[in-house]
């Protein structure tokens, strides 16, 4: 399980550099992501290269995940819970959803970090355990709701 105990000041510039490279591209693509939510055919008929949009987004996601995992280890469910909470808060206009997801994700991490220090006094519970405790129920709720909608 990952833990924030591994993080240190030296990792900050590296993470920052990757963020500076990735985030502007994501924000620039926000209108296209919004339209992609209206359906792939709709997006393509409006002139969006869907394959390129997806590939570029996956590359950025891969880079960002890799850098986080490299410094603090595997901390699951943050990427799942954050965007879903953000979506409930601001809807799916990606101009707002992308920054909101970042903010909510950070907030989830901070809250989990505080909880990790408080659950057992004197013991630092790995933060991955805390996020899993919160994330798993959310994950199942999402899966069940999606199946309910399909029926």
């Amino acid at each position, binding site marked *: 399980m990952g833990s924030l105990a591994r993080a240190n000041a030296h990792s900050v510039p590296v993470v920052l550099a990757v963020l500076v490279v990735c985030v502007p591209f994501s924000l620039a693509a926000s*209108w*296209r992501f*919004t*339209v992609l*939510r*209206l*359906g792939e*055919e*709709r997006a*393509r*008929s*409006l*002139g*969006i*290269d869907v394959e390129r949009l997806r590939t570029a987004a996956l590359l950025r996601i891969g880079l960002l995940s890799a850098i986080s995992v490299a410094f603090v280890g595997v901390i699951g469910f943050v990427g799942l819970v954050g965007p879903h909470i953000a*979506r*409930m808060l601001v*809807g*799916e*206009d990606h101009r707002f959803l992308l920054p909101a997801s970042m903010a909510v994700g950070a907030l989830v991490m901070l809250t989990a970090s505080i909880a990790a220090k408080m659950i057992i006094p004197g013991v630092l519970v790995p933060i991955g355990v805390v996020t899993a405790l919160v994330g798993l129920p959310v994950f199942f709720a999402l899966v069940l709701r999606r199946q309910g*909608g399909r029926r």
Partner: protein
Amino acid sequence: MTVSQDAALTVRGLHAGYGGRTVIERLSLPAMVPGRLVALVGPNAAGKSTLLRAMAHLVRMRGEIRLGGIDLARLKPAERAATIGFMPQSLPDDVSLSVLESVIAAITVTAGGGDGTPVAERALDVLEDLGVADLASRTLNLLSGGQKQVVSLAQAIACAPPVLLLDEPTSALDPARQFQIMCIVKGYAVAGRIVVAVMHDLALAAQWADEIVVLTRGRLHGAGPPADILTPGMLAEVYGIAARVERCSEGRLQILVDGVVPPRPIRAAAGGQIEPVTRREFR
């Protein structure tokens, strides 16, 4: 890129399909001219939607589709998007975007068509024209099927493309909305644009279309004005139904289905030779 006012849409030697499956082979269509509403009809799996998607370059295709002197395959995606509006059969479920946001997004990503008016205002105008301005702040996942269809139409015509392709625009609408939407679509054509709509409802096609194009099994069966095309012979050959076509009091065509006809030899569209229809082909 400029499209002249009277440029016609022509399809020649078109092959189209999905993956390894070819749905349409060597299809050529009569020119589709601005100002006229063209209805694409045919039984299920005739290739109507595939043809429409091919015209919008959404499926794998080969052949020639031209708008006047422009080969649409040569256009950049953004230029094509500004030229061709496409309305898919359905919008996805579970999208928490407001109706207005969705139309704004559609206008914003499509290059061109800008005339200085703020995008939000243009989007609202489109919704007002379609009579759904009251839904503007409603999110898409709370709309009924019919409302979604109207919103989807709004997204397609928001940039006023010279060519509009509609995949069953009224399939989920009640009669009043159906009438309203067909009025708008017809008006869009009358304003000098090319409109092609896949239609399942033959009565609706007879009422609204200026031209009807009949497809069957990926081939052209016939094309022309509704009165020439909608005949008992065509309905028996293409749809396998025994039907009467009658003019009612105001001269409007009415199709009365009396039953199904057993499979029988049909005229092959390409060579004119007789092609026996066997049970195997219906599997």
